């Protein structure tokens, strides 16, 4: 086959395309992923019931803010990474900012507490549940995000996979926060941050396999 034949075949009828399709797919994936994650968290774990006093409420908002900041930054970058050459416009440092912030806050809160409390502040009551739940809740959001990115054409598959994992982990942490009753900053930094990083690593490993085009 000659290339000019291919070109005339391809330009025989050219459909106008929607330039916003990449951003739209990522947006849809984000909303669907969030809905599924919250649904799973509610149905399988149940929402926390102690929101009558301000302290749990503040911590809930703080957890959600952390997860939301992570997800938001990652989703913006993911929409860029999904396009060919988009990796030029992504700085992983900025995406790590929420992690740095929560680690700093955790450090401050540990510094203010007596060291006999540290063990309890870091491990909480349910670190194991947190460690297991967030990655499991993240599975469906991850699949939806991968579907969205496959509508486009990422050229750096490891990094795109990592950011897909980061988005899914953030969404999942947001949903899990509705259930989790461990209210201490070091706990959030270690177990929320850690599991989100875990999801990111899993995404980076799976990216090259799932995203090829």
């Amino acid at each position: 086959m000659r290339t000019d034949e291919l070109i005339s075949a391809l330009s025989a009828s050219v459909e106008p395309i929607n330039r916003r399709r990449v951003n739209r797919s990522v947006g849809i994936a984000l909303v669907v992923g969030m809905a599924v994650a919250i649904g799973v968290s509610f149905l399988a774990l149940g929402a926390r019931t102690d929101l009558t006093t301000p302290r749990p409420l503040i911590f809930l908002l703080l957890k959600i803010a952390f997860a939301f900041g992570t997800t938001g930054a990652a989703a913006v970058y993911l929409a860029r990474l999904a396009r060919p050459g988009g990796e030029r416009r992504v700085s992983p440092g900025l995406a790590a900012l929420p992690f740095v912030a929560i680690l700093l806050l955790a450090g401050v809160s540990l510094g203010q507490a007596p060291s006999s409390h540290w063990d309890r502040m870091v491990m909480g009551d349910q670190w194991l549940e947190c460690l297991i739940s967030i990655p499991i809740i993240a599975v469906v959001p991850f699949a939806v995000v991968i579907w969205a990115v496959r509508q486009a054409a990422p050229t750096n598959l490891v990094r795109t996979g990592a950011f897909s994992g980061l988005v899914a982990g953030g969404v999942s942490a947001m949903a899990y926060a509705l259930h989790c009753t461990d209210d201490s900053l070091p706990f959030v930094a270690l177990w929320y941050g850690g599991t989100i990083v875990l999801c990111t690593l899993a995404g980076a490993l799976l990216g090259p396999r799932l995203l090829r085009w």
Partner: protein
Amino acid sequence: MLASQDGDAAAHRVLLERLSRHLRAYYKGKLARMGRGATEAEDLVQEAVLAIHIQRHTYDPAEPLTPWVHAIARYKLIDYLRRNRASVTDVPIDEAGEVIANDDHLSAESSFDLRRLLKHLPEKMQCAIEAVKLDGLSVAEAAQRCRISESGVKVNIHRGLKALAALIAQRTQT
């Protein structure tokens, strides 16, 4: 590029023709250094042209075009080399001469036969692509010939081209 995103067929053809020349120079340069022939370069040119066509919605008008094209070209080259990793090491030495012998500009043909490749696709995709892309019918006429709706024709062409790109990628795997 902007005009072809909006569905201007003539502009699209000019764009693909111009880009294909750049791609040919790019791939010939890269592959010649690895001791590979012009046919392989042409395979890659066509893979990249097809990718540019299928993925034209991923070009963001706010960004310059060259990095976008380069990213696609590079991705396809790396993908191709990865698929053929085994053969990178056992390229025979005498092929260096062959490269020069085959290096007649523009006339190189790739190793794919479009009509034969089409036979591997599901019937509806085959029919839609053949009618619109090869025989030059309008979408409405193609819908009649293939007995599917007009939007069905469009969907089948889109999916078919993607499947075709995958087939071509498979074929270049040696």
